[in-house]
């Protein structure tokens, strides 16, 4: 459906922010509506006596949108914990990331303790190897059965792994060299860097992964998110995921065996066929190597004990 009336209204009268955002998303994907919008703006610019630049109203709207993007006060109010992390954990790159993370945690702990209806437990550890949670500057090893508080930084070192059962229902598999923060009841994940495999239980409401460059919102599914410094890859194992760039830029729905990439400041690329076998195999290899390591450890202890008894 082409919202022609909405486009006319937008150009002539303007729209409320949410409706404006929704219409602009549609315009990005619909060439026919974009052409209609261009024609309306061309008329507005001509009436203003300047066919080359934007009409005064369009220039003012651009300024407002830009100020909203550069100084996102309203967005911060909507999801304060995430905004805090965007500012503190993501902005400084590797050298400062550790210090920023500790600082962010300290600030957030104050927020969590002081705020009414504090976020509480986000997940429970199912299995773990080397994973840690940083709370109030204290590192605690995550062991099976341990509760993972919301808003604490969870990190998995090289060679480690972590599997979580989310309070909202479903699971989260965290690959090695990953750092993330879970939101209330595990309904949101702020992935700073690394790779996660999301297995949210269907019909339990919202589940969203935000990276420094993209947001992936579940539409009932299992999917993998890889966050790097300048881009994010989303690969869907089954179901469907809605992916947007940072600041809600673009919208792509990715289905099973498809993937998309979001570069910093860009819209997601169109969904393309991709294989998730490498990811699922990587997880299996990771787990097998840990089990093998444990087995060898137990065997060597056993050998030591039997040698000792001889």
């Amino acid at each position, binding site marked *: 459906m082409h919202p022609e009336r909405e486009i006319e209204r937008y150009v002539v009268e303007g729209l409320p922010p949410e409706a404006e955002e929704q219409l602009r998303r549609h315009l990005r994907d619909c060439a026919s509506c974009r*052409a209609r919008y*261009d024609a309306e703006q061309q008329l507005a610019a001509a009436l203003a006596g300047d*066919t080359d630049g934007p009409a005064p109203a369009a220039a003012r709207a*651009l300024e407002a949108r*830009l100020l909203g993007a550069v*100084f996102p006060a309203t967005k911060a109010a909507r999801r304060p914990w995430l905004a805090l992390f965007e500012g503190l954990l993501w902005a400084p790159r590797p050298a400062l990331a550790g210090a920023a993370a500790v600082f962010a945690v300290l600030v957030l702990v104050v927020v969590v303790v002081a705020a009414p209806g504090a976020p509480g437990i986000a997940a429970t550890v199912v299995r773990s190897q080397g994973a840690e949670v940083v709370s109030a500057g204290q590192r605690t090893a995550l062991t099976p059965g341990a509760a993972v508080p919301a808003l604490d930084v969870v990190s998995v070192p090289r060679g480690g792994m972590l599997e979580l059962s989310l309070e909202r229902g479903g699971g989260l598999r965290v690959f090695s060299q990953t750092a993330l923060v879970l939101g209330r009841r595990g309904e949101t994940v702020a992935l700073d860097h690394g790779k996660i495999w999301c297995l949210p239980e269907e019909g339990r409401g919202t589940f969203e992964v935000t990276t420094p460059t993209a947001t992936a919102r579940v539409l009932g599914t299992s999917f993998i998110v890889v966050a790097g410094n300048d881009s994010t890859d989303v690969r869907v194992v089954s179901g469907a995921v809605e992916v947007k760039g940072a600041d809600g830029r673009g919208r792509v729905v990715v289905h099973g065996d498809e993937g998309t990439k979001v570069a910093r400041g*860009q819209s997601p*690329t169109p969904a393309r066929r991709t294989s998730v076998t490498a990811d699922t195999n990587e997880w299996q290899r990771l787990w097998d190597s840990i089990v093998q390591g444990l087995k060898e450890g137990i065997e060597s202890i056993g050998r030591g004990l039997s040698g000792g008894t001889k």
Partner: protein
Amino acid sequence: MLSPETLQAFVRGEREAFVEVFRAHGTIVVAVVARFWAGAFDREEAMQEVWLHIWKNRGGVDPARCGELAGWIATVARRRCIDLLRARKSERGLVDIDETELATAPLPDPVERQQVAVAVAAFTATLSKAWRPFFDLCFVQGQSYEEIGVALGIGKLRCKYMKKVLATQARRDPALMAALARTAGGRRAP
């Protein structure tokens, strides 16, 4: 030219300074973007990207060299436009493209522009005396409903209604629409 104090505030990340820079040098970005994109929507999206890029790279501005800001903005805007176009083309599976081939938007044709101006003048000539001041404040000067309301002593709702009526009348003006359709932008319209 902006003052060194404004540029210092801009580099520090102050909102008011950003607005000043945006308003002072907005036309440079408009001109650069217009060379790469023909449609209004694409241009708006690109302008937003360019300004975000300028903001993120404001550390490259030397507040002591105010006179060089316009050139710096033009260079950064051009580089960003090229990057954006390259990213779009590579999304479509195309190989890297020569920079000179990227600036493909047609230059404004003075004859077409003149024809549109004549059609707009003819349209405004049909407006009654009561409507002309509103047309001027709203469409030409781009004032807000609040400002127009104060200037003409009418309510916001009345402003909204008048703007809608004028826009509909303009859309129904065959000479104006024909002049717009003859322009490069108009030929792309549905």
